[in-house]
């Protein structure tokens, strides 16, 4: 649309519209990243500056106190470790089950394919909150309440549609001839998948891994339902509780928020192209 309108009119008009366009873009970028910058500022200023009114725009006297405080907090360290374990294990399990299922859906012929794909995708419409009560009872029966396993199991199920959907899209893009050649040479379906498809699909699998990891890292509902003690809780559960623990120590709360988001922001900046291609693979049929 914009491209359809831009070339109209004289040179003066197009300069003006270019200026307006960049003003609009700058505003948009600023609004998107402002909270992170502001919270970062809150995390590196002194307590007295934090309570100053009007608030200062630039940090007057940067300090690492807030960071020192939260990194000395054993509960916060434990929460970071828990988050890494939950997200990492969820990603590995999801990719394992997801990639074999996605391969079958993308490549093999079978009668119930449509039903199975619908079933898997239905999970992305499924409100997780609807099953926390029965799952709490079941997990208690199996004795896995307050263990990382409880959240990993639920995260895997709710990340699966994303994983399968993305991998099906990636697998379909790969040339069929290679597997066929492998099969002619006597490889079984499983061998063709493992030796030919998996290495070729590595970039797609990697993109899927990033998105699954972010999904599990950000999950909150199941973690706050099934994990009852600071020994097992991930950062998403622990940080909101800081509001009661560090009541008016807003600097520490800000520092904790920065620590949790910065790795994600870096990952996003490095892999933005891949992430965008992954995110849009589902919505637009290509």
């Amino acid at each position, binding site marked *: 649309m914009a491209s359809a309108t831009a070339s109209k009119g004289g040179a003066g008009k197009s300069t003006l519209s270019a200026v307006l366009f960049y003003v609009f*873009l700058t505003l948009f970028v600023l609004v998107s990243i402002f909270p992170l910058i502001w*919270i970062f500022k809150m995390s590196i200023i002194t307590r007295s500056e934090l309570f100053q009114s009007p608030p200062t725009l630039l940090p007057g006297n940067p300090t690492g106190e807030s960071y020192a405080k939260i990194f000395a907090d054993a509960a916060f360290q434990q929460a970071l470790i828990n988050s890494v374990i939950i997200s990492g294990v969820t990603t590995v399990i999801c990719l394992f089950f*997801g990639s074999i299922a996605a391969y079958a859906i993308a490549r093999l012929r079978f*009668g119930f394919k449509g039903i199975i794909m619908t079933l898997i995708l239905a999970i992305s419409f499924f409100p997780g*909150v*609807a099953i926390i009560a029965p799952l709490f009872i079941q997990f208690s029966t199996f004795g896995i309440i307050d263990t990382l396993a409880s959240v990993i199991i639920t995260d895997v199920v709710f990340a699966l549609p994303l994983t399968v959907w993305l991998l099906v899209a990636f697998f379909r893009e790969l040339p069929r001839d290679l597997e066929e050649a492998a099969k002619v040479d006597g490889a079984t379906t499983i061998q063709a998948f493992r030796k030919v498809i998996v290495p070729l699909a590595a970039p797609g699998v990697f993109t899927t891994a990033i998105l699954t990891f972010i999904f599990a*890292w950000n999950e909150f509902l199941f973690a706050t339902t099934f994990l009852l003690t600071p020994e097992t809780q991930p950062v998403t559960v622990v940080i909101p509780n800081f509001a009661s623990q560090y009541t008016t120590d807003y600097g520490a709360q800000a520092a904790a928020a920065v620590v949790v988001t910065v790795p*994600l922001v870096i990952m*996003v900046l490095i892999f933005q192209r891949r992430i965008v291609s992954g*995110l849009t693979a589902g919505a637009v049929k290509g």
Partner: protein
Amino acid sequence: MSVAAEKKRKGGFLKREFGDPERRTAYYMVMPAVLIIFIVAFFPIMYAMVLSLTDSTVVQTGPFVGFANYVEMLQNPDFLEGLINTAAFTVISVTLEFLIGLGIALAINQAFKGRGLVRAAILVPWAFPTVISAVMWRLMFQDQVGVINYVVNTLGIISQPILSDRTLLLIAAIGVDVWKTTPFMALLLLAGLQTISADVYEAARVDGANIFQRFFRITLPLLKGTILVAVLFRTLDSYRIFDLFWAMSNRELESLSTFVYKSVRVSQLLFAQGNAASVFIFVTSFLLALFFIYGLGMQTSTEE
């Protein structure tokens, strides 16, 4: 066709499905994913339905009471408040996200310098954990150190602390959600726009179509599929909103999901009613999805 012949045909179908080695391998490959989904999602929702019809607590299943829990739930002011908040939140935030997202997508659907930077900026709010963005914004809305609270107080727009008024809190939550997910919406719509060929616009222009005609007659119809997918996902996502309300408000801003959570995990006196609300959320989500698919003609085919 006679019954016997149909039976035979069916037997042939099953035989073909499970007799052929390649097809059998396919079923083995999808089996683990399907099984885990059944065990962890579909079985529990049936269990929730059973629990919602009984007078149960978290430790024991009680006697069958019919729809009594649903009746009590519908008379519970907390549930009704959650329902109203959730409906308002969903309708307003998804509408705003769609309109602003479409505007942004249309504006950046062209080659320009700094495209990578814009794309990165788009992804930053999306990558944030929702609870963490709630905590961040809460710090900015806070009445002692919050920059937004300071600005609106100074400008005289709002005089009371934002975080202690439920209506203001709901508005703030909508604002945070719009901030967080509009870029994502823009990204999806942009991907959809990029599949529309420039030739179509060119042809329309040659035929004398103006900018509005081009938008309503070409862009919107061709973008319909993408719009429906994006809006359905966002609608169902907003409808089950939990973490944002929970972390922004010291747990007093009610949504359907916070009602369920409080009933089954915090108070536990309302366990059965909480299960009724669970089933309510599940069924209404399902109906919403059906409405999009059949009512609005959303394409769900995943075939090549």
